[in-house]
């Protein structure tokens, strides 16, 4: 066993733990997230002029003129505005009291260094593990508090995105996430069956057809369904599909004007690229939709075009009715109860979109067990030690890097962790 221990401790992941918080400027987060252009700088100065007249931020948001939507919030005040829109309040004590134990810790761990690795804040070679560990705590605490949702790939991007926009304010990000998911009823977006997401995809399909017939039928002719491309846009709310300096503007729009703007943004994006899209065949199109660097988007223009797309309330309601009236092939999904009230007023979802049953093998309890092999220690087990030092000590925001390292090399801990 001795050799097993030394092997894991030698791994580079353990050697370089650095938990010193970076400054926002250094980490390029918060108001330093990206370089603002002249237009945005001017916009920010105007805001500052208003703010010096002792106008509170919330009234600024309310007086936000519709015609100015495409300008978004100035970067410096963005996080404060977002919080004001959702009226979130955060309490560090409450946050710290949430344990980090959950069934998804392993899945979460696997995604930590694969979330925005190109951004300084999450890049361990530039700034150490600071960003990754904040991300890890939020996701684990969330998975603990909302066991039904747990963790779904894609949540890492949303959380990471918010961490960067907020300037690394972990506690506030957690509160914001909770408020965000509740306000827009996204709880069933991320559950095992992705019921909420299916609903959104279905409505999108209908809206797409009614808006841009030619484009829609090009997609259908090329045999491309929503789950192949737009699923990714919706699931991560654009955070893994658009460059971050565009995503912040889309989020401005969503927060100011409602969640159905996700449809508008996608439709505007398609319309802007219509010429190109119509020339592409199936696989080329799928690749194009997955390559942001080919899009050449300007956020202000995308938002302006998005605002121009009119979604009729009546049509939307009739789509909703149609969705509700569809036969219900699978009863088991009805168990999830909706408790929170929606602001976007999406009705209760009572049917499942896809008539096919999901592959039997992927039901949790039926995952094939193959016991022909001897279990040996898992390299990811090192995580349990980290968890312990963060959550059990009850002071997860003020831990000592040295303690973590000491825990990692303690022989006794390894004995307990060995799986026979």
């Amino acid at each position, binding site marked *: 066993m001795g050799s097993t221990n030394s092997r894991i401790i030698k791994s580079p992941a353990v050697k370089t733990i650095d938990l010193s918080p970076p400054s926002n400027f250094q980490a390029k987060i918060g108001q330093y997230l990206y370089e603002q252009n002249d237009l945005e700088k001017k916009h920010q100065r105007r805001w500052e002029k208003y703010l010096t007249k002792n106008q509170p931020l919330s009234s600024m948001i309310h007086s936000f003129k519709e015609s100015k939507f495409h300008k978004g919030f100035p970067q410096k005040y963005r996080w404060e505005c977002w919080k004001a829109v959702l009226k979130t309040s955060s309490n560090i004590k409450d946050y710290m009291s949430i344990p980090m134990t959950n069934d998804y810790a392993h899945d979460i761990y696997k*995604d930590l260094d694969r979330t925005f690795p190109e951004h300084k804040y999450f890049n361990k070679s530039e700034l150490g593990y600071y960003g990754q560990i904040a991300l890890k705590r939020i996701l684990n605490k969330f998975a603990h508090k909302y066991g039904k949702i747990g963790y779904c790939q894609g949540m890492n991007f949303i959380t990471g995105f918010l961490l960067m926009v907020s300037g690394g304010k972990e506690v506030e990000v957690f509160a914001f996430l909770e408020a965000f998911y509740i306000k827009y009823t996204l709880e069933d977006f991320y559950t095992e069956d992705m019921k909420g997401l299916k609903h959104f995809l279905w409505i999108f399909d209908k809206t797409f057809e009614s808006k841009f017939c030619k484009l829609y039928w090009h997609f259908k002719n090329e045999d491309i369904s929503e789950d192949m491309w737009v699923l990714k846009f919706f699931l991560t709310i654009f955070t893994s599909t658009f460059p971050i300096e565009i995503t912040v503007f889309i989020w401005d729009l969503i927060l100011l004007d409602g969640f159905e703007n996700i449809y508008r943004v996608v439709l505007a994006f398609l319309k802007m690229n219509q010429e190109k899209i119509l020339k592409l065949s199936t696989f080329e199109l799928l690749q194009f939709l997955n390559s942001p660097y080919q899009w050449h988007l300007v956020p202000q223009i995308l938002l302006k075009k998005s605002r121009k797309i009119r979604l009729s309330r009546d049509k939307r309601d009739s789509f909703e009715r149609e969705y509700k009236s569809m036969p219900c092939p699978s009863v088991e999904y009805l168990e999830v109860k909706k408790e929170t009230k929606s602001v976007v007023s999406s009705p209760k979802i009572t049917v499942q979109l896809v008539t096919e049953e999901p592959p039997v093998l992927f039901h949790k309890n039926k995952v094939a067990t193959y016991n022909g092999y001897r279990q040996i220690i*898992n*390299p990811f087990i090192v995580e349990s030690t980290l968890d312990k030092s963060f959550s059990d000590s009850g002071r997860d925001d003020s831990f000592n890097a040295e303690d973590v390292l000491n825990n990692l090399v303690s022989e006794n801990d390894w004995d307990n962790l060995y799986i026979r």
Partner: protein
Amino acid sequence: MATMECKIVTLGEGRVGKTSLALKYVKNEFHKDEISTVNANYLTKLVQIPQGSVQLNIWDTAGQERFRAIASNYYRQAKGALIVYDITDRKSFDKVVSWIKELKSQAEKNIVIVVAGNKCDMEKERQINRPEALEFCRKMQIRHFDTSAKSGNGVEEMFMELASQIFEANKGELGQSGRNSRRGKITVEKTKHRENSGKKGGCC
């Protein structure tokens, strides 16, 4: 010469290197911290094999199981599947058998499957004995490859083998009507020129 267009899917636990393998092969790129895949990525490469040429359309899928519940099209018309496990992660190897079962029940009958033991540059941290893996694949009658997306070891060979096996398995369909030339089906020319109906060779 006729080009066969085919869809292949990558399968395997999260973080075993599905995206890295595909990227290494298609673009000869390797990123130590590859971004985790949400739903799927799409990559394509034209492969020349002695018998002809094959356009591999790679559907690089996400590891997390819950995506299978919503994206039911993963296996549809797939001609080949690449199951990846991480030689330093026992769990990922134990999952291989369930992926094979899954393919046998969900995918097309003649789907070509190959298994890749990835990260073989990390031999020191190996948890799965090579003979054990080979024996397992021999029983399942599936080709096994040791690969490393980092060094590129075995990657080219594996995709070549996959391409030629797919070619062999589907050459009967080559030259049939191009009318049902949808994704994953056999076409006789590259997709790029599909709108050029005049060029459609091999049509009845």
